[in-house]
């Protein structure tokens, strides 16, 4: 063989090998670079989170109340680190989903809508009520079918408290529905024992856990545990059955392993973290797994799981079977800090809740606003989602809550049909005062800049809810730091800075004009009273044919590493 040719042949072989290697590298390395998902997709921000997979095979499971309480009191279920809520869209809002539907604070609500509640049902029709099932719980109750053939869960009022638990259940149902949660309809109704007829197939649960045919003594036994009005009627809460197949409740941590659409750990759901704020508002100290209910509902050819909050009679001033414990809302069932102090101080450590005085209005129970402290409020048992709530979660919730105007609050309270007008007025006023306290705390402790809007001419406007609702003085000014943002790589390049007020922050010259380009604007407020407002929020805009559109928002882009805390998320101290 000619050495030159050999050399040439060798060189050709080398070239082929190099080419093959290059192709391999190109197919392996380059796609790896381009595999990075863009920060923003064309459909961001989404307003609806769709359950795309069929969940018809999700099975019912019984949850243990004891286990739930013990594991949350003495353990720390869920992920050890707290990150930004995972259920928010790119502009830091919770899209409509099987968990939550944006209502108050997102769209105008009327008092009629709040008074109406989840649906138009107004309770059982008059006439014969066919009793189908007797519950065996702490609160007496039946399942009935009314004269119109509709099924209801009937809950009675405990003796001597005809209005407290029943009004609470209905009022809080209305409020939580208005706030955006899926809840069953509940109405106050009057039960006449003579209207009750035992259904032929009615069953009662026996003490040993079995069932047997129901008889009249079962009804009498239930009525004997309930408050009887002088005219022989019973004031009850009639709850509508939820559509779909009930599969028990959801836990506040982890995901349901047999639900394909449940991919976000519940403790990372903003709507559950934010529930801390709403629960504090109405003193709902009992948000736990068994006070939730999942149902499998079918839309078209696909089934999915809808997540509901249920059982609100242990809220406001009620414990369901009477007035609530004074400690509720102030301490966990096992709260080592105050317990240690009490142990050592011979009882002379006076906890705040020990000296709270409550009004004595009929149907109100132990509920007030004056001593309410939103940031330290806590349920009876630590909730994995609540203890992970960050300042951006509580800000989101507080802002939603401020959407509950005085008029809407009064409408919800009216649904409770309290017979004492002064009680109704007190309850509504207390809810308003508590709402405002929540706003004062949670809208001001983090940079409150919201809803930035960038006009095509480069004028940036923003909203400051803390100022808007009168909880803080307007800051001396606002600062914007402008960047060009590369949506593919996440890289930024500075464009300049500007200062101004909330109505006019001028962009520096040189903003990109081509459609599809992105900006990141770091927005902060200059306020000596609120140093935390100096930490900027990040707002992202995409240039479209008709101007700039907000596509991203992060209230705490520089949040430190956090862990579940005593009440909410706390920074990890190194």
């Amino acid at each position: 063989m000619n050495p030159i040719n050999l050399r040439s042949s060798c060189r050709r072989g080398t070239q082929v090998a190099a080419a093959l290697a290059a192709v391999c590298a190109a197919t392996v390395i380059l796609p790896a670079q381009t595999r990075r998902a863009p920060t923003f997709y064309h459909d961001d921000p989404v307003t609806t989170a769709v359950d795309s997979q069929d969940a018809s095979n999700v099975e019912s499971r019984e949850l243990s109340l004891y286990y739930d309480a013990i594991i949350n009191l003495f353990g720390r279920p869920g992920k050890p680190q707290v990150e930004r809520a995972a259920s928010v869209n790119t502009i830091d809002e919770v899209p409509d989903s099987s968990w939550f539907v944006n209502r108050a604070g997102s769209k105008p609500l009327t008092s009629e809508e709040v008074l109406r509640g989840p649906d138009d049902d107004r309770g059982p029709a008059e006439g014969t009520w066919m009793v189908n099932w007797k519950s065996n719980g702490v609160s007496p109750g039946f399942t009935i079918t009314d004269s119109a053939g509709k099924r209801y869960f009937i809950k009675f009022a405990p003796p001597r408290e005809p209005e407290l638990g029943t009004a609470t259940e209905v009022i809080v149902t209305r409020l939580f529905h208005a706030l955006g949660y899926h809840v069953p309809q509940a109405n106050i109704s009057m039960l006449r024992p003579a209207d009750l007829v035992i259904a032929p197939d009615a069953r009662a649960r026996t003490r040993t856990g079995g069932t047997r045919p129901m008889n009249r003594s079962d009804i009498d036994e239930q009525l004997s545990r309930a408050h009887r009005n002088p005219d022989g009627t019973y004031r009850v809460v009639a709850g509508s059955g939820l559509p779909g197949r009930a599969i028990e409740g959801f836990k506040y941590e982890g995901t349901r392993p047999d639900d394909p659409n449940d991919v976000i750990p519940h403790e990372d759901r903003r709507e559950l973290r934010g529930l801390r704020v709403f629960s504090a508002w109405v003193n709902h100290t009992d948000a736990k797994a068994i006070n939730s209910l999942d149902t499998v509902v079918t839309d078209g050819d696909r089934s999915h799981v809808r997540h509901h909050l249920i059982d609100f009679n242990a809220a406001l001033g009620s414990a369901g079977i009477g007035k609530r414990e004074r400690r509720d809302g102030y301490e966990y069932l096992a709260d080592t800090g105050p317990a240690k102090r009490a142990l050592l101080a011979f009882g002379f450590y006076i906890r705040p809740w020990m000296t709270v005085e409550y009004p004595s209005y009929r149907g109100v129970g132990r509920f007030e606003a004056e001593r309410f402290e939103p940031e330290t409020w806590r349920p009876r048992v630590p909730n994995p989602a609540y203890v992970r709530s960050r300042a951006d979660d509580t800000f989101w919730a507080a802002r939603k809550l401020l959407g509950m105007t005085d008029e809407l609050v009064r409408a919800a309270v009216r649904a409770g049909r309290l017979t004492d007008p002064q009680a109704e007025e007190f309850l509504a006023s207390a809810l308003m005062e508590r709402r405002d306290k929540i706003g004062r705390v949670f809208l001001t402790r983090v940079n409150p800049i919201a809803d930035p809007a960038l006009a095509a001419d480069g004028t940036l406007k923003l909203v400051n809810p803390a100022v808007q609702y009168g909880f803080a003085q307007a800051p001396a000014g606002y600062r914007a730091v402008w960047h060009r943002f590369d949506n593919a790589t996440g890289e930024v390049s500075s464009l300049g800075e500007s200062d101004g007020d909330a109505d006019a922050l001028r962009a520096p010259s040189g903003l990109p004009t081509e459609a599809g380009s992105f900006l990141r604007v770091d927005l902060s407020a200059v306020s000596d009273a609120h140093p935390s407002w100096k930490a900027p929020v990040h707002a992202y805009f995409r240039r479209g044919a008709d101007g700039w559109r907000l596509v991203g928002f992060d209230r705490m882009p520089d949040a430190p590493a956090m862990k579940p805390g005593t009440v909410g998320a706390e920074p990890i101290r190194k």
Partner: protein
Amino acid sequence: MAASRPWRVCVGFVLLACVILPPPALAQSPGSRAEALAAEQEEKSRNLQPYKRNIFERRLLEIEEAGGFAVVRGPFVTFGDIKQSSGVALGPAYGKLFDNGSVLIAKGAYSIRNFKMVQLSAAAPPIARGRVTLGGRVRWQDAPQLAAYALGQESPRTRADFSEARSELSAQVEARPIKFLRLGAGAGYERYDTGGAQTNRSSVEDLFTPAEMPGIAADPDYVHTFVSAGIDSRPGTGYSRSGTLLQASLHDYRQQNTGPYSFQRVDGIARQLIPILHGNWVLDLSVRTSSTTVDAGQEVPFFLLPDLGGSGELRGYSAYRFRDRHSIIFTGEYRWYVQEFVDMALFYDAGKVTSRRGDLDFNRLKSNVGLGLRFHGPQTTLLRIEVARGDEGLRLIFGFSAPIR
């Protein structure tokens, strides 16, 4: 120049590959947020798992489905004490709940001081909407080492030991016909078998004469009947932060075998719980008396005499430290809330035993002070850990019920 050619080819191919080859990973990447979420859900749908409970959760759920911790059903462990000074006892138990609400419980227990107990008890279904309760039991217990001191308030600290085995078949009824009124009655057959103890202390027969200690080596069988009546406004009998208790009970011990040991005993209690600061502080004041009477020629056996000392009464003194025909004890407690189901208590007990009823007064009382931690349920005291100091020293007390019931 030539050497660089392979790299030119290389770069050329890379560019070509980038243009014409579809990057496999990119081809599968979602093109929208909706697709990204759907992809995540689809991935999970390929790996669905049924919900699995761990063993702890399974067991707790079983207890809940059986009606909770307050309702005994199936096998469980009994924990507490068998008799004063038995120490902590533990044993197997089995409960059966019937559809009509009646309950049958079988249990056995063995204590760290070798006390033993076997019991079968039954409770009838609640009558008259729970206003009347009816129960009964068969019980055998063996106490191999119980303390006996000379009778009287000024008895020396010299302790003798004795053993006591007791068998019982009894039934009792309790009624609450109207609010706060509590009536009770019961009857039972009780058999006592006493003797020397297998301990390194003196046996009671060695240290005392029958004149000094009536009933030594006596094995009386009794028909024991009692009636009681009281006003009780406490929310619970085992734990409460408010209310008043005024109660008297009359017991008749009628000996069935040969022997002079028939007697009657009257117990009285007056107790006032004063809640302060909404019940977070509680002043618990009580006085209790026991008094025995006998017909001519009869005596009260020493092991059934009113006694003071131990975990319930005059806690700074050892169990059964003082015995005599009559007793009185005053207790003042200041309790404070530590947290839900936990209280602390500072207490003072003062009492005496006497041979004559007329001597039940405030003179020459034995007293102690103490401090304790209480674990309780809504209406039950589960565990007391207390330290009490009397003039005979410091005592550590473990109790499994309220000191005063």
